[in-house]
Structure formats: C-alpha cells, structure tokens
C-alpha cells in the first residue's frame, strides 16, 4: 500500500519529465518519433503507461503509437540493461562467425532463451542487420564504442571488464 503511493508520486514526476519533452515538441503529433526517442532515452524503454500518456497528450490513437513503437527495432517495450551490446549479424559478420560471439556472450551472461537482457538489468545483447563496417567484420558495439574483428573470448573479456568497473564504481 505504502509502496504504491510512492509509485504514484514517482509516476507524477516521470510524467512531468515527459511533459517537458512534449512541450519542447509543442504536443505535435507530427513529432511522434522524436518524442518517443527522447522519452525512451529517459526511461530506457517505452512502458504501456508512457505510450498511453504520450498518445492521449498529442491526440494520436494509442494503437497507432503502439504500432510505431513496435515497428522500429530502436524502440523497446521491455526495459533494457545499463550496457547495450549490439552485435552485427549482417552478411559479412555472419560469414565471419558472429554467431560464435553471440553464443559466447549469451552463455557468459546466462541469458535464457528469448531473453536479451540480464536479470540484474546490467546488459542487453541485441543483433543488428548491418552496422556498415563490413571491413571490420565481425563487429560489435558496446555502449556506442565500436570493436572490430572481435573474437568470442575478446567479447567476453570486454564484458568482464565492464562488470569489474561497475563493481569498483559501486564501492
């Protein structure tokens, strides 16, 4: 009971932040995609509540906003991890065995079938169709930083390093 009242207060604050984004875009339906992008930047994902809120605020049917949010791979309806790993699985990377890297990362992070985010929300592993850096195949991007000609062991080592740094930071 107490907790849900706190949740309500938290949601009021959340929506105040969304209001600022909406105001910046003049509550314009034509700005739906930038509004969703900026909102996702704040919350890491687009929850049902946020989608409903944006839709009613700009006067677009929620079904349409849901359609846009599910169409673009960039938008996520599930919360994502703190660190986002994008592994290229385009033709060149695929031929250069990107799959081995994916398997190594998934097993290292103990990701269950169908899951792309670790249970502690530290990492999200996604595949993308082409990063446009085929000369560096196989390519992996961690938090915006590009790594070329990656080997499975190397990928796992990078993840271990981030985990160590995070732990050190917390202390």
């Amino acid at each position, binding site marked *: *009971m107490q907790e*849900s*009242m706190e*949740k*309500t*207060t938290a*949601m*009021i604050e959340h*929506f*105040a932040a969304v*209001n600022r984004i*909406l105001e910046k875009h003049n*509550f314009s339906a034509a700005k739906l995609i930038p509004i969703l992008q900026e909102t996702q930047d704040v919350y890491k994902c687009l929850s*049902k*509540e*946020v*989608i*409903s*809120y944006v*839709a*009613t*605020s700009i006067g*677009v*049917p*929620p*079904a*349409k*906003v*849901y*359609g846009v949010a*599910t*169409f673009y791979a960039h938008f996520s309806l599930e919360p994502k991890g703190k660190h986002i790993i994008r592994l290229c699985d385009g033709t060149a990377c695929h031929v250069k065995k990107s799959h081995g890297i994916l398997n190594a990362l998934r097993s290292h992070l103990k990701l269950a079938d169908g899951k792309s985010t670790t249970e502690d929300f530290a990492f999200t592993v996604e595949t993308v169709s082409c990063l446009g850096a085929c000369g560096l195949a196989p390519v992996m991007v961690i938090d915006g930083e590009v790594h070329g000609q990656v080997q499975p062991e190397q990928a796992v080592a990078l993840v271990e390093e981030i985990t160590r740094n995070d732990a050190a930071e917390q202390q």
Partner: protein
Amino acid sequence: METKPNTITINNIEVAIEGERNLLEVIRKAGIDLPTFCYHSELSIYGACRLCLVEVVGRGVTAACSTAPRAGMVIKTETAQLRNMRKINIELLLANHKRECPSCARSNNCNLQDIARRLGVSEIRYKQTEKTLPIDDSSDSIVRDPNKCVLCGDCVRVCSEVQSVGAIDFAFRGAKARVAPAFDKNLNEVECVNCGQCAAVCPTGAIVPKPDYDKVWAALNDPEKVVIAQIAPAVRVALGEYFGCKIGENVEGQMISALKLMGFDYVYDTCFSADMTIFEEATELLERIQNGGKLPMFTSCCPAWVKFAEIYYPELLPNLSSTRSPQQIFGAVARQTLPAKLGIKPENLVIVSIMPCVAKKFEAKLDKFKRDGRPDVDYVVSTVGLAQMIKSMGINMMQLPQESFDMPLGFSTGGGVIFGATGGVMEAALRYAVEKLEGKPLEKVDFKEVRGMASLREATYNVSGKEVKVAVVHTLSAARKLIEKIKAGEADYQFVEVMSCPGGCIAGGGQPINTTPGFRQQRASGLYSADKTRRLQKSQDNFLVAQCYEENYGGKPGSHEAHEALHTRYQNRGQIFDARQNVLCGSAEKKLPICVTICTQQQDCNGQELLVGLVGFVKQNGLAEKVDIDATFSSRPQKEGTIGITIGDLVLDMEDYSIETLGQAIKEGIAAL
C-alpha cells in the same frame, strides 16, 4: 495515330479522363474490373495488395490505384507478365491465410476467394504459414481472427479515416506484422465504438459480425418460450440482396413470413418504437428549447455514436437526448406490456432484435438496460445473421406470401420507417416538433434539406417566428468535425442528428456487404418510398403509440412514467486510455472501482491530495478491502472534459468535492454493490 487530348489508351481503346483520381478509376470506367483488396473509393489510397498492377508503356509495371492518369498514357491490363504477377500475389496471400473456407462466415462472399477463383489459382506453390494468433471474440459486436487477415489495412483506414477512432492499427513488422488494438489488448478493452464498419470493408473473414443465432434457435426450439422479434427499418431494404433482389427492394412482407416459418410467435416492427422515440425525443427537444435546457441536443439512437461521445466528448453527455434508442424502447415496452396482453409468464417472453447494426448487440447487453438481471432485449441478430438463419432452414424467402406485422407493436408511420437512413431521425423529429410549435396540422411533411448523402447537411426553419437550426451528420469523423466547430463557437444549432455509419443504418456493420457504387442511396430510397406508401407520415399520428402512452406511461410523452421506462443515462468513458497506476487493491469479491485523475499539466491539480485523502478515508472506515483505487494521469486539463473522480458509475468534478462528500458516495457505492 495521334492521341486525342485528355484521353488514355487502355488495351487499344481510348478512354477519356474525366477527373478520376487514379488509373484504376479510369480502367474500371472502361468496363474492366481490375481486382483489388485495399482499394476503397471512400478511403485513402494505400497500394498494398499489388493486384491492380498494370503496364504503362514506357514506364513499366505499376499499381493502377496509386498512379495518376495522364493524357496520352498507353495502358495494358492483361499481359502474360501481369497475369503471372497477380497470380503469384494471390498465392502468397493464400499461403498466409488460414484457409478454412467451407466453415468461414464469409464463405461465398469473400473477396479473396472470389479473386483467387477469377484468376484461376488452382494450386498454391508456397508453403502454408503456421499462424496461430488468438481469435479475439471479446467484443459483443464483432469477432476478429488475425489468422485470416491479409493486411490490406481497409479496417485500419475505415476506423481512423471514416470514424476518426483508430482503435486498431498495424503493429510489429515484416513477418510479424498484424492488425491489433493498442498493446494487443482485446477489442472490448479499447476505444472501439462497435460500429462494425471494419467488418463491412474486410475483404476476408478476418473481421465478421458476432453470430448470435444459435441462442435464438435454442429459444425457438423451446416450447415453453414465446419468442418475439422486432425488426429495424433498414433490414427490410437490404435483406433481399441475399435472395437475388435488387438493391433497396423492400422485402418486409416476405421477411415477416420467413420469421413466422422459423417459429417466431409474433413479429413486430422497431418502427413502432421509433415513432415512440420521436414522441419522447421531440418532446425533450421542445422542452429544452422552451425552458433553456442544454442545446444543441444530439440524437441518441445510434449506440456507436453514444459510445463515441462517452469516450471522446464526456463533457457533451448532458447534450445527448436522454431518450433510449428505438431498440431499447421496444424492449422496455414489450417487457412491460406484452406478458399481460399475450397472457404469458414474463420469464417466458424472449425478445429478439433483428438489426442492421452490430453496435446494437453491445447496447442490448449494457447493464443499464437490464431489469432484475434480465436484459430488455435478449438477443440481437444482424441482417446478415438473419439471412444465414433463413438460408440454413432452406426457406426460399422470395417465394413466400407477404405477411404483415403483428399489432399493436407492429404499427408505424413513415416517420418511424425513415429512421434507417441518415437524416431520417431529424426529419421525423421535425415533422413532430414543427407541428407542435406551430400548433396546427403540418401540411408539408417532407424536409428534403436534411436528406441526402453529403456528410453534413444544415437547415434553418422559421417556425412561428422562432428560428430552429438543425444539422445532420453521418460518420463519426464528420461528427467530430462538427463538434469541434460547435465547441469553437463557429457553429450553433438547436438539434443535431448523428449516425455513425456512412449513410446511416442502411449501411450498418450488420448489413449485407455491398460495394456497388450508390448502394446506400438505393437502400435509402427504399425507405423513403416506404414512407410515402405508409398510411400516415407523422410519428405523432401513430394512435397505437398514443394508446400505449395512455395505458402505460402517464398518458403523454415526457411524463414521470415515461422518464422512468423510456429514458437512460450515459457513462463517462473518458479515462479509457489514461496511464494508470493501482494504489489500493481490496480482496473482497465485489469491489467498488474508484479512479482519481491527476492532471500533470495543471499546477494546482488537487488529485494527489484527494487520492491520499480517499485512501486514508477507506482505511479508517474499514472499507479498504471493498474498493479498488486507481490513479490515472492525464496532460489534459479538467476544463477539456478530463474527469476528476469516478466512484463506480458516478462521475464527479474534482473541485467541488471534499473527502466527506466523496466518502459518503463511496459508502453508498459499496452498499449498492
């Protein structure tokens, strides 16, 4: 050969361009019916189905629907390449389609089936996809089977463009693309207004009116039951299309005979209760005009429009006429008067509606139209459903003798008959109101200004020195436009008629599917001819309605008894989409839902304060287990109709209420559970 100006050559024949929007229209004018799924002349052009492919010499293959006609174009519609492409496209669609044709509701009336047959598709060379998406039968009105969907988008466009609702849209993409309500919710949980226009444009069996006839057969086969039918005006001018009649032909007599053959004990006419609706509604209008009531008054016959207003314009609900729709007036009158008249036990009376509409199925199930748990109208069968029942029994309807409606609830005037076409309710109401205002018999009963198919018709009448301004709209997008004009102060009327379906009930979601140009006008003129041939034209002359008032409803419209039985109230559904957070969840079996809206844009919004206060109140008074308290969040300020607090069905404005008065309402709400 020199090409004449402003013509195109189609398969070696020259055809003039006469303002057509696209090649497809010119080609169809030339007598070639190119196949299409996604093209509807009343909707925006989508170009998805790739069946109207043509070759424009010098330009290659293109979709005719999305190519503008230009003078001098040379078009081929039937080359080996085009035939092959169309066939492949159909095969791909069929490979993606749950093919259960013999048991599909649209069997024999399916665009996909028809085109596949026309193109001579005899085998499907592609592997069948295994789609097992859940069937959504949550709505009272329609059933959605996404596995039969070919993604033409007709339903999506009719819902957003014609109805301005947008309850369904495309979601996901590629192989996972599908048409879905927001968050893949069930249709009964979203803003669907139940009009069924999506079913009317669906080329396959992916969206169909909900069939209810099994329950009707069960009642007909039960010797204890006395089963009666009421038939809406629009049914009689459309049912015949299923039995080879021309569009708009009135098959009233044969239809009554068929119902009698099926075992209905009495067959009555909804036009009777439409006349009665006019008694109540026009009286209400006159009262509002004379006593300074809320104006403009909007009609309330169309349940899809009523739900639309409840969702989008809750602040206008006091402007809706409180008179029940003809279907529900009939239900109330029949329940109250027939058991004694027919000498039967009230519980044995089964009331079936035959309606052109699928929203009527939803309306009949609303709690407000139940008495002691029993709905006033037990079952609602659509025109399509009735045709199915007649055919399944093997009745050759058009060879039956013509019978007449049973009395007294089968007697009607022309005013009641024209209710089925856009403008009809307005015209019938004008016949009543003008006569009453002038205080002398009305000479000219036709109000032709309000007839027709223009999306908005306006008229001003000078009635004994008083100006009466009226407007008629059909389709909900036209209604929305008009309401916005009224709200902005750019338009002003005393009375507005709204029907949700284009053309009115004659083209309702439960009517036979027809794409012939002008079919709406033809069905409507069927009703206007019936008006002419009725003995009486003015609803107020219906002496059996007058007698009904005399016997049951205080002798006149607007009486206390009439208000009790023939009027209704509306529900604010404005919070349907607001982001929501549960704050307190009781454990009792029956709980009172309470919802507090917090406006995040309004600095001085007292929603949070009230929320904390209410939670404190229910805890202190030991009511916490008996309520569900939700907070909803909205960026719309209250003055725009955003509601403050709902306690059960009660809708309250936030500002005027204290915890004490709200607490009292909660106590009363719990006591009434």
